[in-house]
């Protein structure tokens, strides 16, 4: 049965994981996302669905547990925040290189280093450019509400298995901690049959399954890389998701995701009240990035400004997408500071209307 609840974003992710029929969660505490593991432990998912939940000895162990479970064809999820996600990068590279499906949640906090426990969007590069070693990509989903935090768990698993690729939900401390109403989907049963590549034990009717990212034959390794690239191009052709607000007649386009996008929706209204025809493009998938719609809008507007809780990372992808057709600026706040709708309108004015 679908259910309406008031929940923190972190809790919504945890509950959504149980309801999505996840087989396992492995994680390590870090603010601002520890509620995910806490909620799961309190819910006793082993009794509700048989889901395995284990507090690992580190994020490194957790992501390698994800690898082991995913290689058995199971739906496995982990979560962390920025410093912990950095520790997971070698494992993520192995997971991508072995073409395993899994879901990783990054509830981003400000950095670099130990940084702050306050929300930020400064892990964009790490999330969308691969993050670890080698030529690989994650599928990156950017929720802007507690509802989407929950919904993207199921969507994430679906994409992960469809493409045999790790999926990241890139969110932040604000969305993780904020409480909102959320519709939770009904309980999906956990699976009882597993993909044919899964290491579930070699039965006499099939060849053995080997999960590895190693190939010492250069020609084969190159072929494999080309095949991965084909998969990423297919993702770019078929899985781009984005949302437009007042973009049709806009003179100035804001581009923002997650928390920033939510604030920008208010900024668009404020700007329009002042007679500035502003609009917003919100990428929902950060990889694959909505290059095409951006390119199309770039020909119609007088200026584009990205708003990010960082020194400007996504702005580089926007500039690449619009190929110099229009001026692209960036407005950002760092260190856990969330920009106000007013300062965004001010920044838009300073950049384009002085």
């Amino acid at each position, binding site marked *: 049965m679908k259910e309406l609840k008031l929940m923190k974003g972190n809790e919504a992710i945890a509950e959504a994981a149980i309801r999505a029929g996840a*087989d*396992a969660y*492995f994680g390590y505490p870090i603010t601002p996302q520890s509620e995910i593991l806490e909620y799961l432990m309190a819910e006793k998912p082993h009794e509700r669905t048989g889901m*395995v939940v*284990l507090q*690992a*000895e*580190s994020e*490194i*162990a*957790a992501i*390698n*547990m*994800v*690898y*082991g*479970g995913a*290689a*058995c064809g*199971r739906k*496995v999820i982990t979560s962390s925040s920025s410093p912990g996600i950095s520790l997971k990068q*070698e*494992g993520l590279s*192995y997971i991508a290189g*072995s073409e395993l499906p899994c879901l990783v949640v990054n509830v981003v906090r400000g950095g670099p280093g130990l940084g702050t426990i306050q929300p930020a969007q400064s892990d964009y590069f790490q999330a969308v450019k691969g993050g670890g070693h080698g030529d690989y990509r994650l599928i990156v989903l950017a929720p802007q509400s507690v509802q989407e935090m929950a919904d993207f768990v199921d969507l994430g698993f679906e994409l992960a298995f469809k493409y045999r690729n790790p999926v990241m939900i890139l969110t932040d401390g604000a969305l993780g901690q904020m409480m909102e109403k959320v519709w939770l989907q009904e309980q999906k049963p956990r699976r009882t049959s597993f993909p044919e590549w899964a*290491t*579930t*034990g*070699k*039965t*006499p009717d099939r060849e*053995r*399954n*080997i*999960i*590895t*990212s*190693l190939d010492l034959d250069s020609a084969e390794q190159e072929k494999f890389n080309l095949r991965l690239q084909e998969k990423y191009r297919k993702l770019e052709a078929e899985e781009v998701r984005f949302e437009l607000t007042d973009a049709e007649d806009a003179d100035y386009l804001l581009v923002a995701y997650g928390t920033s996008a939510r604030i920008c929706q208010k900024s668009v209204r404020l700007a329009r009240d002042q007679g500035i025809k502003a609009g917003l493009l919100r990428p929902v998938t950060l990889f694959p990035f909505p290059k095409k719609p951006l390119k199309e809008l770039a020909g119609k507007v007088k200026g584009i400004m990205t708003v990010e809780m960082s020194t400007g990372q996504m702005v580089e992808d926007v500039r690449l997408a619009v190929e110099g057709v229009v001026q692209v600026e960036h407005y950002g706040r760092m260190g856990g500071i969330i920009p106000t709708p007013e300062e965004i309108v001010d920044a838009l004015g300073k950049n384009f209307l002085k």
Partner: protein
Amino acid sequence: MADRTGINDIVKDENLVYKKTSVLTDRVMHYCPGCGHGTAHRLIAEVIEEMGIQADTIGITPVGCSVLMYNYLDIDMQEAAHGRAPAVATAIKRLMPDKFVFTYQGDGDLAAIGTAETIHACNRGENIAIFFINNGIYGMTGGQMAPTTLSGMKSSTSPYGRDVQMMGNPLKMTELVAQLPGTWYVTRQAVHTPASVRKAKKAIRQAFENQKLKKGLSLVEIVSNCNSGWKMSPVEANKWMVENMFPFYPPGDIKLEGRLTGKE
């Protein structure tokens, strides 16, 4: 053509005294002649065949000389990141508690980069088997010092011998994990003589059988030579192993049925 009648008289089912286990594939192994890895692989394969658990066994190969073990065993296998096999095995076993799960790890893999994963899998009492090949060196990367390298032992990164003041002491991970309540069976074996091979096989069998009990983790260390890394002939290497490795890493049972034997 030579007359094969004689041979055909001998090659008959009733004359069979030894046969390669069907759990080993026909791939030619890449190991240096005389290396212990190949023997250890064979023993694991034989035990899997004898127990009839080929369809129920998942193995995890490490980063190290044995990274390609999945080419030689005809079972489902996963290749883990350097040191992380016990974490990988933990998830597999938790998700499929009735399967037999083992890791196969070198000393660099298990006792250096993977120390945390090893200790915590042991301490949680995961119902898995760890086969730990201790050759006192990083074989795969060309013979660098390992945490297990003996005091005074030469390697490419301790070219004048391991100076424990400067480089730290050799680590007895097997004795260390035997102290943890989560380990059920901890033993040290070798595979350099027919007698030691028979004993090692028994230990490997025990580590698999223990998984049915669900009482904790079994760790079988196999002290082995790395003749290439040690820069010796296989015969010299085994002699050196007996004379130098065994005094510090003595073969024998360290923990049986959850109880220390007093040899730790």
